[in-house]
């Protein structure tokens, strides 16, 4: 865990209001898919909280792509960074997606800006010989992104709410038996209603992991700001830290209220 001096290498739009930012670290760092970077935004003390953005692609141990939606002041500032500029970044932080080398097939499910962390995950799964099938959902055609990247590693099904690209509906509608049967495990990242539905639909059929989102303070485990309710081994519940105990949790441990 460390603070890394990184430089912006490249930044382009990949979908409506979504940017892909390539950064290069001064020295190599170790990483796993599903981890995140905690990025300082703005000048001076205007923004006291860093912004968490997932690792989307790793070219090697120094060059990483982050894909993010521009939604507020912090991501707007980030979208204005140009090649050569420095960034103050912590990470990669948190616990990423565990890989199980015996798996023959994995099902990846992503919604909106939950899709980015699945890209490097798909690569790592393929590298160990696990077949990958991805189901990704977006609002409409203008939001669709990263399909080529996922398609390079396996089958992809695209779903949009209005049917303007792929099939119409939600990701859960696309989880037909031919997709689900034969999968040894699922991995998911996306909005809470999607994760809750997956816990119900897939949780009993196969083991799985979900990547959670909560508002973060420190990002390094000291403030208890990023709490999410989880089940404890003794049958109770307790708030756990998304930043250090997660963001990825085994699906059966998570409580969606």
């Amino acid at each position, binding site marked *: 865990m460390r603070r890394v001096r990184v430089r912006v290498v490249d930044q382009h739009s990949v979908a409506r209001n979504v940017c892909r930012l390539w950064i290069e670290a001064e020295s190599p760092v170790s990483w796993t898919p599903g981890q995140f970077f905690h990025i300082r935004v703005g000048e001076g003390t205007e923004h006291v909280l860093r912004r968490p953005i997932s690792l989307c692609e790793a070219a090697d141990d120094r060059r990483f792509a982050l894909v993010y939606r521009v939604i507020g002041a912090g991501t707007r500032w980030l979208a204005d960074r140009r090649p050569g500029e420095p960034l103050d970044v912590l990470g990669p932080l948190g616990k990423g997606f565990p890989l199980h080398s015996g798996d023959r097939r994995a099902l990846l499910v992503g919604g909106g800006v939950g899709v980015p962390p699945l890209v490097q995950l798909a690569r790592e799964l393929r590298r160990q010989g696990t077949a990958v099938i991805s189901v990704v959902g977006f609002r409409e055609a203008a939001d669709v992104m990263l399909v080529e990247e996922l398609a390079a590693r396996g089958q992809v099904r695209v779903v949009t709410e209005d049917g303007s690209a792929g099939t119409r509906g939600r990701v859960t509608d696309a989880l037909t038996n031919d997709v689900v049967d034969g999968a040894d495990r699922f991995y998911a990242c996306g909005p809470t209603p999607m994760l809750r539905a997956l816990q119900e639909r897939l949780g009993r059929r196969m083991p799985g992991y979900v990547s959670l989102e*909560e508002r973060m303070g420190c990002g390094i485990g000291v403030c208890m700001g990023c709490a999410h309710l989880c089940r404890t081994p003794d049958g109770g519940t307790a708030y756990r830290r998304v930043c250090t105990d997660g963001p990825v949790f085994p699906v059966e441990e998570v409580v969606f209220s």
Partner: protein
Amino acid sequence: MKDADPRSKGKGQELHHDAPVVDLSAEVAGIRLKNPVMPASGCFSYGREMARWYDLSRLGAIVVKGTTLEAMPGNPPPRVAETPAGMLNAIGLQNPGVDRVIAEELPALRPYGVPVIVNVAGSTVEEYVEVARRLAASPDVAALELNISCPNVRCGGMHFGTDPAMAAEVTSAVKAVSRHPVFVKLSPNVTDVVALARAVERAGADGLSMINTLVGMRIDPERRRPVLANGFGGLSGPAVKPVALRMVYEVSQAVRLPVIGMGGIAGGEDAVEFLMAGASAVAVGTANFMNPTACVDIIEELTDWCRRHGVRAVRELIGAAWRAK
């Protein structure tokens, strides 16, 4: 992966190896500190995670998370929200309870050889007293800090901090069972902070910590609801610094107790301002979230500031801005 940022190690010394040595030592309520900088409660957990970022033995002291008699689950999320140059938090004192803190957390800090101040919270006088009684038996405690000013737990904490009579009652009750110096952490959510400070001084407090967070809120216009699940939260960070400075300045002149000053400290010069306002030491909270090495960076910046201004000992700065001087 490396554990600590190499730039945070000994930068000052290398740049100024022939510069005069600055005496950073400080003392609060009889506790000697090698420098006046410590993390603020709740912004450092119990230290384990921070130990991965720098050597904790460099700190003047360590102040741990608010600790209660029983484990506290904490509030539902969202618990934090950003505000201009600050943030709101409503953590709800999530902590494992005093017994586990004594058994598991405090011993882990022993190797650093730094005084440990335990922040104590409760919802009744009896609860504060019982936590203090149990901590009195721990060999790992240097002082207690009574959190009578937490805005985030229902019926807990803050009503003690806004009523001088109750603040005095909890202070003297804890003093009666504690063998450690007792700091009382004051709430800024009062009209007369000096009256509170005087009340706890008379009740036997050994020092004051100030300020805790200011109660505030944010509203999400789209949802037409408060942003925090708790509704209200505590405001901290650079936005509160002017309020904190004013309160430290007023209180430190009105009482004889040493003051640990905090509220928006993000750089060495902020620490200098608090010392000049009358604080004997300073605590750093929200700045740890901007930058995990904030505490040790501030120690270096404070040292550099003293060198540049010909200050031989940081103690000289304490109260330098008081009117009477």
